[in-house]
């Protein structure tokens, strides 16, 4: 009865419309699920910006919204904003970051993210919906994840005729932890919109190559430009598209379609990318972009050769071609080397080298290696982030090989490259995720398409008399005789309902488990704002540890507006965003020397550090100490990176070996080396810590070691603030002593230790000449 009633909706034109509507509803539901699964952190904590970089993006967005685009473009970092009448006069009160060097912020960031949220903000205001800019920023990433799901539907639909593959890919993309890790609500980072742009650009590119259309090529270039404005990872596209074109040419698949799409994309895309101030002339000057330029030249050459081939007889053409290829190769190679050597083309950047040699950064550029997301990926991470897709992925790639049209070549190349990069750097898991979703969806959809057919198949040459079902086995045998299995195009199908039911049941279970896993990972691993920590009390209730914000608000309320805060660079953006105070270094690690200076101040003796602090006008020093709470991400654990980075600049003053005991252990207890115990960081971390414990029982719960009975003494600084759980400690740098003593003796005097009268002088008297 129901089936009969539904009949008209499932067949013919109406049926197509119904399916279209259903698809739309499904996609909307997927988008809804994608958004919903990213809201854990908002529900559990609050609508807050997460981690480190997002704080800068948030501050930049506020600036953009309040001052307009042009001010943002010319932004030379400041802290906040007074008016927007005259662009320069009253706006810049004081520099925020990189004191005292300053940062040309407008020219050193990717503005795409901020501009996007700015536009959304203004559109909403236009619609009389005054939404706080913070909420837009917090919810931008979930919102865009819905769009990413849609984009992966589009791109997967280009790969296969099966309508279910696209929907599966969309669903995978929506909830896979590999993508959620960078796009939960509050994770207001460039990746939030960049992954959508990445997938969508690829979709447009596939479309362009398929149709040979200048319009799609131009659209590709447009979205490529958007991508460039949003994320430094655009270089991935810059290299992947040329590689695709190159492989196609090598496979002998050159076609005018490729020529049109590639040339359009390259010309317009390069122009578009050069409009971003931060990128500027890089596309024609840096090595990373040379492959795109080279393939562009190659495509022109191949087109030219194709043209010549139509005009010249075959024999001469071969000779001509060979000579031409040799000459051009020699000339372009020579030019490239010459330009690189002479410095016109920038050599490969350090981050790029570390892609090829995972040990490179550790030796040469400690600052890159010090970032946890630049570490090589651990194997379990693949399963953790992608779950069942990681084993569907090879199958999907294999299926691409089977068909191997132009777009499948693209998926194969993308899969190979992204797998490699994801293995090298944790954060590049993000670029792997889309292709895994696509490939896994291809594989899974073909399984489902095969097993989910309710009707038993009928061979193509089904006889009109209807006897076919009986002798299928015999028919199959006939076919084998005819030709190779791969060419005979048999009707494949499953006849037994048991096998159908079992396979479908198994797949359904896997998918349900996948959903379960994704939800679990998202809720447990990726939804912590890291500004606010959560812990469980013995009775199971949640306890919020809010030391970061406590300390940042203390700074905001209790220090002078221009007070300079020194901290390790990890906290720079947060201090700028939450405490609203200038910092010495921050997460935009553009100046290694300046960071090394901070590292030196932290890792040297007080007498060495103090002049550095004075020179940089430092008023307060902020450190993170987890010893009381067992919070392992603290500065003592990061300390070796400070030592290494400063050793890179001052090898004769700082030596990493001195911070290890004779047996090569990194210790903080009685056996710690004198260098370690005299370092400013150690002193600041453990200053007064003894007072919390009974005498001689002080315990560091992160390092799990007992501390020396006598705590360190500080003379050039005084403790200004320590947060509730001792996670953040802030010290005030003392002024020079008023009557010209050094700080040690001043402190000794204050404590009541009388100076001994100088005993009998030794050696010649030093006379006053003045």
């Amino acid at each position, binding site marked *: 009865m129901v089936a009969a009633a539904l009949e008209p909706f499932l067949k013919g034109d109406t049926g197509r419309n119904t399916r279209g509507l259903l698809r739309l509803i499904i996609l909307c539901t997927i988008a809804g699920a994608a958004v919903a699964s990213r809201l854990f952190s908002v529900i559990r904590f609050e609508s807050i910006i997460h981690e480190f970089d997002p704080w800068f993006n948030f501050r930049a967005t506020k600036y953009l919204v309040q001052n307009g685009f*042009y001010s943002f*473009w*010319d932004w*030379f970092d*400041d802290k906040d904003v007074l008016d927007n009448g005259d*662009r*320069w*006069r*009253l*706006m*810049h*009160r*004081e*520099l925020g970051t990189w*004191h*005292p*060097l*300053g940062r*040309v912020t407008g*020219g050193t960031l990717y503005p795409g993210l901020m501009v996007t949220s700015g536009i959304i903000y203004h559109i909403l205001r236009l619609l009389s919906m005054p939404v706080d800019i913070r909420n837009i920023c917090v919810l931008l990433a979930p919102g865009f994840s819905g769009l990413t799901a849609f984009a992966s539907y589009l791109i997967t639909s280009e790969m296969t005729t099966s309508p279910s593959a696209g929907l599966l890919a969309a669903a995978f993309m929506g909830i896979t932890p590999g993508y959620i890790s960078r796009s939960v609500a509050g994770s207001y980072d460039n990746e939030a919109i960049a992954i959508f742009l990445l997938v969508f650009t690829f979709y447009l590119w596939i479309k362009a190559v398929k149709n040979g259309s200048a319009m799609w090529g131009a659209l590709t270039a447009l979205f490529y430009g958007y991508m460039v404005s949003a994320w430094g990872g655009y270089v991935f596209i810059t290299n992947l598209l040329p590689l695709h074109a190159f492989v196609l040419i090598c496979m002998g698949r050159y076609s005018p379609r490729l020529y049109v799409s590639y040339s359009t994309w390259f010309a317009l895309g390069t122009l578009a990318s050069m409009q971003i*101030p931060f990128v500027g002339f890089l596309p024609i000057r840096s090595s990373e972009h040379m492959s795109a330029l080279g393939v562009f030249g190659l495509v022109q050459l191949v087109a030219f050769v194709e043209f010549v081939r139509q005009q010249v007889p075959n024999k001469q053409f071969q000779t001509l071609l060979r000579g031409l290829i040799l000459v051009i190769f020699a000339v372009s190679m020579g030019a490239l080397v010459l330009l690189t050597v002479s410095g016109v083309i920038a050599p490969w950047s350090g981050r790029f080298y570390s892609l090829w040699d995972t040990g490179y950064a550790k030796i040469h550029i400690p600052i890159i290696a010090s970032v946890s997301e630049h570490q090589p990926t651990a194997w379990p991470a693949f399963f953790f982030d992608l779950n069942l897709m990681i084993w569907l992925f090879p199958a999907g790639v294999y299926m691409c090989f089977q068909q191997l049209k132009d777009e499948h070549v693209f998926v194969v190349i993308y899969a190979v490259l992204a797998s490699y990069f994801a293995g090298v750097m944790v954060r590049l898991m993000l670029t792997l995720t889309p292709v895994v979703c696509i490939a896994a969806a291809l594989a899974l959809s073909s399984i489902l398409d095969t097993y989910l057919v309710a009707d038993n198949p009928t061979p193509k040459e089904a006889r009109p008399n209807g006897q076919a079902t009986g002798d299928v086995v015999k028919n199959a045998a006939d076919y084998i005789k005819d030709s190779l299995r791969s060419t005979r195009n048999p009707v494949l199908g499953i006849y037994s309902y048991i096998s159908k039911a079992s396979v479908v049941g198994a797949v359904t279970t896997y998918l349900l488990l996948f959903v379960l896993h994704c939800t679990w990972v998202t809720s447990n691993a990726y939804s912590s704002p890291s500004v606010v920590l959560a812990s469980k009390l013995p009775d199971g209730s949640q306890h919020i540890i809010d030391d970061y914000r406590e300390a940042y608000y203390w700074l905001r309320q209790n220090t002078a507006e*221009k007070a300079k805060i020194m901290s390790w660079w990890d906290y720079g953006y947060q201090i700028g965003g939450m405490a609203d105070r*200038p910092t010495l270094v921050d997460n935009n690690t553009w100046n290694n020397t300046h960071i090394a200076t901070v590292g030196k101040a932290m890792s040297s003796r007080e007498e060495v550090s103090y002049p550095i602090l004075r*020179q*940089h006008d430092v008023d307060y020093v902020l450190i993170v100490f987890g010893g009381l709470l067992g919070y392992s991400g603290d500065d003592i654990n990061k300390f070796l990176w400070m030592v290494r980075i400063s050793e890179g600049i001052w090898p004769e003053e700082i030596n990493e070996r001195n911070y290890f005991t004779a047996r090569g252990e990194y210790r903080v207890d009685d056996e710690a080396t004198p260098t370690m115990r005299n370092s400013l960081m150690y002193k600041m971390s453990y200053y007064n810590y003894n007072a919390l414990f009974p005498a001689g029982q002080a315990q560091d719960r992160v390092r799990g070691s007992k501390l020396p009975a006598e705590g360190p003494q500080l003379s050039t600084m005084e403790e200004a603030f320590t947060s509730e759980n001792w996670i953040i400690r802030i010290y005030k740098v003392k*002024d*020079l*002593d*008023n*009557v*010209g*003593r050094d700080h040690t*003796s001043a402190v000794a*005097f*204050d404590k*009541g230790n*009388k*100076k001994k*009268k*100088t005993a009998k002088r030794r050696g010649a008297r*030093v*006379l*006053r000449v*003045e």
Partner: protein
Amino acid sequence: MRWLLSLTFIALLGLVQALSSSGSRLLVVVEEAAEKAKYSTFWKDLEERGYKLTFDSPKNDKLSLFQHGERSFDHILLLPAKSKGLGPALTPNLLLQFINKDGNILLTVSADAPTPTAISSLLLELDIHLPPDRNSLVVDHFNYDTTSASEKHDVLILTRSSPLRSDARNFFGGDGTLAFPRAVAQELGNTSPLLAPILRAKSTAYSYNPKDEVETVEDPFAVGEQIALVSSMQARNSARFTVFGSAEALEDKWFDAKVKPVGGKDSKTANREFAKQVTAWTFKELGVLKVGRVEHHLSSISEGSSGNDSVAQLGYLNPTIYRVKNDVTFNIEFSEYSYDHLVPLKIDPADALQLEFTMLSPFHRLDLVPISTTANSTIFSSTFKLPDQHGIFSFRVNYKRPFLTNVDVKREVTVRHFAHDEWPRSWEISAGWVWIAGVWITVIGWVAFVGIWLWSEPAYDQSKGKKMQ
């Protein structure tokens, strides 16, 4: 012109009250009332200059230097005490705290009275050293008063100080001779830049303990010009601390005594005049610099061009941000306090008042030149081009000279890069003409090509043209 009015008003106020620039409450610590009488002329001189003297004994329990965390007195004058300690109100920590809170101290010592331990440990902190034995005094066998100390040679006859350095101001010079009976030598440490001797002994003097039975003095505490008889320490906050080596020299009898140096004539001592100079300096009547208006602005905009409108002035004065390569003018107004009023500061030709434009290290260090003088102040100015480097810079005037209060004026400004619309337009750069021409030729060429292409559509044969497609 409001600032000028207020300055004048302050100056007038100064004239009326006629006293130190940092307050008039002077605590005189004297152990016995009998002691006090010996110095009556000295007290009278001080009171005439406007000080409100409070005499108190260190033994008084109610004596306190601070009340509610603020100083109860502006200056302290310590006379030599017989007792070993100075009591709970005058511990070295409290005295140091007094200095840290901008209080000034004049300490007098005498060879007759042992120096209390509180004082000597305070002096040690300041790197001023007194002889280790209690009774040491300075003798000079060539410059002594023949009338009063023909035997012991312990009344030194000195001329008034000459400038400490060629570029230093001399507040203690003048004619006449000084008599320093039974002086205690001070030796100043070498490392502290805050110390400066006010009066030094002659090169023939040495420190010596008369109670020592030994005939010859071996390894004396200090000799010659290394002996400071009056020495000063000006703290970083410009609080002043002076050690006066001979309390006796301030007594009435030495104020108008006649002395006769070896081979010289009888003359009246200049002790009274010198005491006035030393107290005036210590209690900040002299050598106090005052910074008035500090302003900087773009050189292209000056007061004249924007009129006298105060709103307009607010706009162009002291902006927080400049651009690289701006021409900037910096003005600073200086006055100097002289006994009871402000006078324009004059910089010695050997000296220079300099402006630094600094970020981590100075990018510019320029002489500030006086451009105008008002009744009470001099305005110094300098104009320069900002360096081609963005960042947070400061205008800094760091003027620290012996006997003058420390001046360290710092004004932070941001120097930004060129904005995107501040570069010359493309057609203003002659080297860009080639490219501009290229662009337009391409544009026109393409339009022309399209036009020709469309216009030159081949005429199809009417009969089969349609089918050809």
